[in-house]
């Protein structure tokens, strides 16, 4: 283990030595920056399984019909792209695999929060909502099966 550290330190010293002799002659400063926002999408089925190799279609805000970019998710259902920040607005990203999928609307420039079509309900919420629907059905059944008064 120790040997490895020595190698690393030695490499560091060599790197410093290479960097040091570079001429630092200019006095004018030219600073540039790019603030590319990378958007990473993770696509999973609601069972939690990642949508591996799902097809991704990205639509720019100015054109909802022609894809701006197409691509494929990786094994973990992830896909990332850099939107053109000169086109602020809502970018639509569609993910589909074997007829399943969805669209997520991502605001670029301005707001930073994204919301997809389906509300992100927790399992508890879904359980509660299901229980309400089931009870509605049971109630209907009870109502229609009561004895009719003569």
């Amino acid at each position: 283990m120790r040997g490895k550290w020595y190698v690393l330190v030695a490499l560091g010293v060599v790197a410093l030595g290479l960097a040091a002799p570079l001429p630092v002659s200019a006095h004018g400063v030219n600073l540039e920056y790019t603030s590319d926002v990378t958007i990473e999408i993770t696509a999973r089925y609601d069972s939690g399984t990642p949508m591996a190799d799902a097809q991704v279609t990205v639509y720019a805000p100015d054109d909802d019909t022609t894809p701006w970019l197409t691509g494929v998710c990786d094994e973990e259902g992830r896909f990332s792209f850099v939107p053109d920040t000169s086109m602020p607005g809502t970018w639509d990203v569609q993910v589909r695999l074997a007829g399943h999928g969805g669209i997520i609307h991502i605001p670029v420039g301005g707001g930073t929060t994204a919301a997809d079509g389906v509300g992100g309900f927790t399992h508890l919420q879904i359980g509660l909502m299901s229980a309400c629907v089931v009870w509605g059905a049971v109630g209907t059944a009870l109502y229609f099966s009561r004895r009719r008064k003569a």
Partner: protein
Amino acid sequence: MHIPDGILPLPVTGAGYAVTAVTTWYSVRRINQQEDPRRDVPKASLLTAAFFVASWIHVPVPPTSIHLVLNGLLGALLGYYAFPAILIGLFFQAVMFGHGGLTTLGINAMIMGLPAIVAHYIFRLRKARGGETQKKTGVFGFLAGVVAMGISVALFVVILLTNLPAEIDVVSEKAAIYALAIAHIPLIFIEGAITALVTTFLRRVRPGVLDGV
């Protein structure tokens, strides 16, 4: 099995709604022609709840996971009540679980509801030639479940394959659709087995439930 929003072009979803509207109208008409249309409402209501919850039960079949549909069971037990029951169940699935979507409600009702009506007619064959027996109930229950699910998978595949958008990689999407269809083959037999089990059980315990269908 549920096609979500944004996958199919608008005219196709519109056609789905049209087919569903006509089928619902016809189903309700058939229900009204019965002696007492209210008699089977409790049964239909409880099976709607079962259908609604079934899509939440995932069965992992690599590389994907599938869920129960139970449309064959609904068709066998409910007859023409099955179509409205499935439509209502699908509506709640779309709104609450995000399974399917509201624009594709018509097309999904078509995919799952029409085979249920077929299942109804298959299950009725148990009464032909010498009357109904426990064995025939099981056999035709199984067939009803298998055929209903089989038609659903076929409709799902055909509708998707005929409406592939040009901008995606058609070859890999086709491969993915076929893989999904193959993953549903076990489900076809599971649905058949469930339908056979439930119908034979009901025949033994409460034969009155099967009277009307």
